[in-house]
């Protein structure tokens, strides 16, 4: 059933179904995804916090929903979650501003 909204929270539960229309690629993706979040050189908790920050910079409502819950489950505090998002926001705004040097270079080249 198509909903009247572009985003529907219930669609997050259907994520696994993407394999139905392309089984091999879908399974490869989920295998990779699962592996990425396993405990490794980084803890699963550290990875979840990175995912939470990236979910915000990507502005993905599904990811924000999923990783807010995931970090809560891992005992992450609200303060830690907000700090992670600020890291994402800082990189986003820094990435915008650092391009200002391109603009400055161009202006300096064009102006007499």
């Amino acid at each position, binding site marked *: 059933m198509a909903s009247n909204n572009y985003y529907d929270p219930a669609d997050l539960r259907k994520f696994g179904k993407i394999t139905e229309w392309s089984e091999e690629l879908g399974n490869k993706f989920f295998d990779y995804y699962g592996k990425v979040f396993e405990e490794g050189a980084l803890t699963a*908790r550290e990875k979840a916090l990175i995912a939470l920050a990236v979910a915000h910079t990507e502005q993905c409502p599904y990811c924000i929903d999923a990783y807010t819950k995931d970090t*809560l*489950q891992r*005992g992450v505090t*609200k303060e830690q979650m907000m700090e992670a998002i600020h890291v994402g926001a800082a990189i986003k705004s820094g990435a915008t501003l650092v391009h200002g040097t391109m603009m400055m270079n161009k202006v300096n080249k064009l102006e007499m």
Partner: protein
Amino acid sequence: MIKEKKKKQQSLQKRDAELANAKRQVEILSNGIFANGELPTFAQKIKETNQLPLRPKKLEILQINVGYMCNQVCEHCHVDAGPDRQEIMTWETMEQCLEVIKNTGAHTLDLTGGAPEMNPHFRRFVEEASKAGIKDFIVRSNLTIIRANKKYYDLPDFFKKHNIHVVSSMPHWTRGKTDKQRGEGVFDLSIKALQELNERGYGMPDSGLRLDLVYNPNGAYLPGDQASMEKEMKAALLEDFDIRFHNLFAITNLPIARFLDYLIASENYEDYMYQLVEAYNPAAVSNVMCTNSISISWDGFLYDCDFNQMLKLPVASKVKHINDYNEDLLNDRNIMISQHCYGCTAGAGSSCQGTVVD
């Protein structure tokens, strides 16, 4: 705001709330998304792996609920315990329990509540029960009771004298999260109580005086990995307060009583049930606590677990009350199940002893 605060200090029963009624709770758990086929019932789910009917294994744990009175009114409490609850086990019922304890094949005795220490016969019962030679004698202490009143100040010494295994709730290593769930000031009192237990040797490395903590989530989400949470909690309590403990048990909140009330009021109920069903782990089914324990209520009735006790789902056995206790007869029964059981089979599983699969 004041009215809201007062409400939070009373049990559902005192407030005469709809969910104080166990039958109503079972109806909610059986209707809606489980009745319209959106989600499979627990019975349908365990049938997929041929685990229906769910049957007990060898009895290992006798869990006795000595009363629903508690000095705290935690938001997530499945017992709906609080200072206003009057259900308290009498000495007469305790004597019947002592007879059972003397003859049981179970190796663990687990006293719970409410705050079990608030039962006026608590100490006499512990003294008598500890003579029965049970291997592991657990008291589920909420910690703050130790600092609640002068008459409880000596509890750490009392526990030590009877070699009690203390299992205590400590939902988080930060004040904010703990107090939000368990009430203002709970964190500081709990820290003080833990320090006192540590002073008696409880929770110290290599100490035989066992001190375990219980973590349960502070809202509509499941607990994270038990081993990682234990590592975090140990590091934080040691660094901030010089506190040590043995194990952390991560317990899933079951949709019963006040937690069910919260889920419905916050419009999280359906999402939470989805989470539980999605996290269903068939491997956890064979180790859920109802398969190796019996729960005895304050009035001597028998249940498959403390959760079934609160939902008033008695054992499906001829033996219904401690008066007629017969372990062999009792062990030949089908375990009563409903949708709350998904709480014990989610992820690595959940029991009063934490996760049930490695």
